[in-house]
């Protein structure tokens, strides 16, 4: 298994190299120029300023040279400087990624816990009213557009009921946390700041719910159908015939086998989160990587675009690797060579 993991990780280097070439090439194929996107209209009409700008950011060099310089710096651990923010890309990623990671983790916890629970209930009470309700919810999850759902949720829970704060990660009047991991919930626990913990949880609930709703729908549907299939198998009948309690049959025997495809769905769902992230971050004013990626793309900030792409590629690889390993844990028949 260890050899397998090491081999997968070594393949990641090749993957990242490929990603860097693709992103660099594609982003430079756009018929525009960072100077046009980042200089004011007056400055853009001044050849002296445009020339100085292009020289500063190396835009006056041939594309292959720009790429080699980028890769040379990358190998030294330097992801370059963002053209838009003027800050090292690594610093930008350090700032924005924890917010996204925290939101993704909470969204996945919500999706997995509620998804599996709903799927099990739905299967156990097949065709009963509870099943109908949960199926409706899960279909809504996979079919509702996240931006619309986010607006409705915000309007109802923040505007009408006033139960939750309307966006952001924390109340700026009360807290201004910096340092630590950047994951406010974790930091609050580590610092023993229970007020901050409560406040950060209050801020994360709605965006996590909206973001995880799609994946929750997928997991519910997948769990339900897998569990129904598993429950009709001989070994379940045998367990029941032996007089085993139904709850033990479901949770102890059937669910284990039913979960294998669910893990795949959950992994895919995690990757899908990044797609919905831009909208959710915008509506809930969540300062994460989604908005950073969007602004970098619209201003042709090449170093930032490459940095975000590499980070997302690494995240995908690690998540997929975790999923592959989880297969082996849940089903001992699966072994990696």
């Amino acid at each position, binding site marked *: 298994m260890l050899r397998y993991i090491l081999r997968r990780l070594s393949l990641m280097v090749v993957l990242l190299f490929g990603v860097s070439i693709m992103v660099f090439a594609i982003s430079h194929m756009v018929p525009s120029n960072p100077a046009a996107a980042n200089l004011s209209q007056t*400055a853009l009409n001044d050849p002296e300023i445009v020339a100085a700008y292009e020289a500063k950011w190396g835009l006056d060099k041939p594309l292959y040279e720009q790429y080699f310089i980028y890769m040379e710096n990358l190998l030294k651990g330097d992801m370059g400087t963002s053209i838009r923010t003027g800050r090292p890309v690594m610093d930008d990623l350090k700032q924005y990624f924890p917010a996204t990671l925290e939101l993704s983790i909470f969204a996945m916890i919500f999706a997995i816990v509620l998804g599996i629970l709903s799927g099990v209930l739905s299967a156990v009470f097949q065709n009963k009213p509870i099943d109908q309700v949960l199926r409706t919810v899960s279909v809504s999850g996979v079919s509702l557009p996240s931006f619309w759902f986010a607006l409705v949720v915000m309007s109802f829970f923040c505007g009408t009921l006033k139960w939750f704060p309307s966006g952001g990660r924390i109340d700026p009047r009360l807290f201004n946390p910096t340092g630590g991991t950047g994951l406010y919930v974790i930091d609050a626990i580590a610092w023993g700041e229970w007020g901050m913990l409560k406040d950060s949880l209050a801020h994360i609930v709605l965006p996590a719910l909206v973001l995880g709703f799609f994946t929750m729908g997928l997991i519910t549907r997948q769990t339900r159908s897998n569990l129904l299939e598993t429950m009709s198998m001989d070994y379940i009948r045998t367990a029941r015939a032996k007089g085993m309690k139904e709850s033990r049959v479901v949770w102890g025997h059937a669910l284990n086998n039913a979960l294998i495809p669910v893990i795949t769905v959950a992994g895919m769902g995690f990757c899908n989160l990044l797609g919905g992230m831009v909208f959710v971050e915008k509506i809930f004013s969540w300062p994460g990587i989604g908005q950073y990626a969007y602004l970098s793309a619209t201003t042709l900030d090449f170093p930032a675009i490459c940095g975000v792409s590499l980070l997302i590629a690494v995240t995908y690889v690690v998540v997929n690797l975790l999923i592959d390993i989880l297969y082996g844990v849940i089903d001992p028949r699966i072994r990696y060579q």
Partner: protein
Amino acid sequence: MKKNLLSILLVLVLAVGLLSGCSGSAGSTQGPSENTEQTDTQEEGAQTETPAEGGKTIVMGAQSDLVTLDPGNMYEPYANMISYAAYDMLYRVQSGTMGTPVPSVATGYTLDETNTVYTFTLRDDVVFASGNKLTSKDVAWSFNRVLNMKESNAYANMKIVDHVDTPDDYTVVVTLTEPDASFLVKLTSNAYCILDSEVVKEHGGSDTGGDTAKSWLDTTSAGSGPYIIESWTPKEQLVLKKNPNYWGEQKNIDTIILREMTSVDAQITALQNGEIDIALGLNSETAKQLEGVENVQIEKGVTAMLTFLVMSRDESLSPEMSNPLVQQAVRYALDYEGILTLGGEGCTIPLNFVQDGFAGAQMRDASYRDLDKAKELMKEAGYENGFTVTLTCANNNSEGTEWTVLAQKIQQDLAEINIDVQIETLETTLVYEKMRDASMPFYIMFWTPDYYDINNQFAFMPGMGDDGTAYGNRAKWDVSSENQAMWDLADKIFVEPDEDKRAEYSKELQELFDADNPFAFLLQHPKTYAYRTDTLESAPYNDLCKIQLCDLKAK
């Protein structure tokens, strides 16, 4: 099973490694926040202090797009809002005006007979937040710093300065490269912020090139304004604290927080709930949700933002649309009343490139539309039966007015004079690049001045090539014997120090301009915002610095 667990542990360690690599600074363990006391010394990326305990705190919600707090690099729409709070200039914009300069650190100035040498006398009681006295050396150092940052947007405003002399501690002599009647107005922009040179030099500042102080100036401020930048987490929040060493009248607000809120709906809800005190991201339509809400006041500020059509004079792009008669016909065919409705309450229609608030501004009557005259002009141009043209439109908006909606209105209006408008919608940066290449025959664009003076608006005058104007180049509209008279007037306005005379010349220029130009000016937009009246006395607006934080008064 043990091997599996070991493997999971290994991957989790990798994941945590990835996480820690992309999270806050390693080893920074300092805690959170709850209204603790200020700590002056701090490591980069480390915990800063938090909003003041017991003091008055005002929170603004906005989508600021701030990317730096270094006055030498700023140019974003909200840049001056912050620089005005943390820094001083020789002159500031007078509250409630579009761009009228009033003395700040300077007590006054004299101008020599060549109109190029300004001698400023400085106040002798100004101190920086650090406690250092502000002297002429700081002024010269700050100006020279920007003069040596040629790749910066701020440099565009500074390059009129040839050199700066400091005969004594409280006299600054600025020599311009050429006479410029707008120089005092330029002085009010962030490019001319006065930095505490001793402090900035300690953090990589240089007035001879190779300045590396930006990263430090992104975390704090080194000015003499009423507030100090205490912390900034981009796209999350910026905290300003009252400057205890401020040389002027102390403000009654201890902490101002700019909270980044990318959603207008979130800003509206937060204002209603009292989570924020000012919502800056509204427009005429969204503000209606706040009408009648208790303790909420909706305001409209005058901006210099223009939205207009560009009709290129390049025949190779469109022989029909490049015809000056057709361009005049387009101006007659537009339904300005309908366009005003689309823009929303508070919009106006400038006659041309001089906005309301600038010298000699002229407005167009909303009932200007004359379809008969437009058809006559089309006939005279030889296009009575019309033609087809592509109108390029970025997926952008001007203060909430979507360009795609404007494009549809224009399509509808021009159909009445047989112009078949095909709308092409592109990403904003692509439109900018095409605009720079002057490769579009017909497009919608917007404009916000870099400094609030008519001189900046000469970007719309004819002129091509390296010395050409921005929109002369973009519309392929060159200087000719027919339009030379416009430049004769513009040259007078450029150097004339008397504002009344400038206004007279400006009116004359606009009449000439209106008779022949490749533009159709559609709207001058208002800025709509709202604030809570239970926490604020007032929230004055100025288009240069948006909300004038120095003039905010808490209840």
